[in-house]
């Protein structure tokens, strides 16, 4: 089948030609054009030669690398990562038991302390609501630890009064 020739140089088509990305019809068109166009022949030749040189260049660089030594390094590093990750995960796993145990111990300590160590102040044995009679030299004391109040007074010797202090 006859394909119409390309009238002008088409760099996009030339690129696709280099990549082998053309349909059969397009391929025939571009090949027909290249055969009659010095500029496009140079374009294709320059880039194809460069690509080959690049592959040779990278192969030269790759051949000089000691991949066996590099592989060992990678494996050692990976193993170290694995071990450190293992110790971290073991630590995290141990927290599963440590945290509930700590919380339980803390609660027990809290209850024990509040029930047995922190005794509430003793309640008053009596409350004086009112007082009648004559008295003098009234003194009020409070014991330091049990915080009990002591009333100290002198009762007047009055015939009508009666001792009313409680």
């Amino acid at each position, binding site marked *: 089948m006859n394909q119409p020739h390309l009238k002008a140089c088409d760099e996009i088509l030339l690129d696709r030609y280099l990549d082998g990305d053309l349909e059969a019809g397009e391929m025939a068109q571009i090949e027909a054009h290249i055969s009659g166009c010095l500029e496009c022949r*140079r374009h294709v030749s320059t880039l194809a030669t*460069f*690509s080959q040189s*690049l592959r040779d260049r990278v192969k*030269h660089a790759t051949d*000089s690398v000691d991949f066996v030594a590099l592989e060992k390094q990678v*494996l050692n590093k990976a193993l170290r990562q694995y071990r450190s990750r293992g110790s971290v995960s073991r630590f995290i796993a141990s927290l599963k038991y440590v945290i509930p145990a700590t919380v339980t111990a803390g609660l027990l300590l809290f209850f024990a302390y509040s029930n047995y160590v922190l005794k509430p102040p003793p309640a008053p044995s009596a409350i004086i609501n009112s007082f009648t009679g004559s008295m003098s030299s009234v003194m009020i004391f409070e014991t330091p630890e049990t915080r009990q109040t002591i009333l100290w007074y002198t009762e007047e010797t009055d015939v009508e009064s009666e001792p009313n202090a409680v």
Partner: protein
Amino acid sequence: MHDEELILRLQRGDEWAFQLMVRRFRKKIYSIAFGITLDVEESQDIMQEVFLQVYRTIGDFRGEASLSTWLHRITVNRSLNWKRRWARRFKWLHISTDSTDGQPAAEPESDLPSPEIRVANAQTRQQIDNALKMIPDQARTVFVLRELEGLSYEEIADAVGIKLGTVRSRLFHARKRLKEILQPLVEEEK
């Protein structure tokens, strides 16, 4: 062993599978890294980092892409990140022209070519490196994946994370730029 089985074994923490993967893909990864960075030491570091990243994150691999596509993607990202490090970028731009690989040009004694050929080879390598360095990073990456690895446009799009049209356009610009760079050299040789 197929890649699917290799992935399953890797996910189970099989050391032997990891070693097999390293052996299977080490040259491919190194080539891509070298094509992008043009630096021997950095390419070796990148290769190691790629494998260690795979080792760390293989549990998250869901198999939406093939193992090689995933490896290409990590390699491309790592290689392009390398270019973003300022100190190394400086080194890249100002590296000596004596040794093209950043290593002494030691050749095996028995296969030693004549000094003239060695000089010519070194000059050719230098010209290739210089030409590649003049292409923008993104376009060079696409070009390297196409020319070195022979990846299809679709595979390149997957590896780089760009659209198919962008692959075509970057490839076109890389070649256009290369032609501009190489044309004077071709004229000189005539």
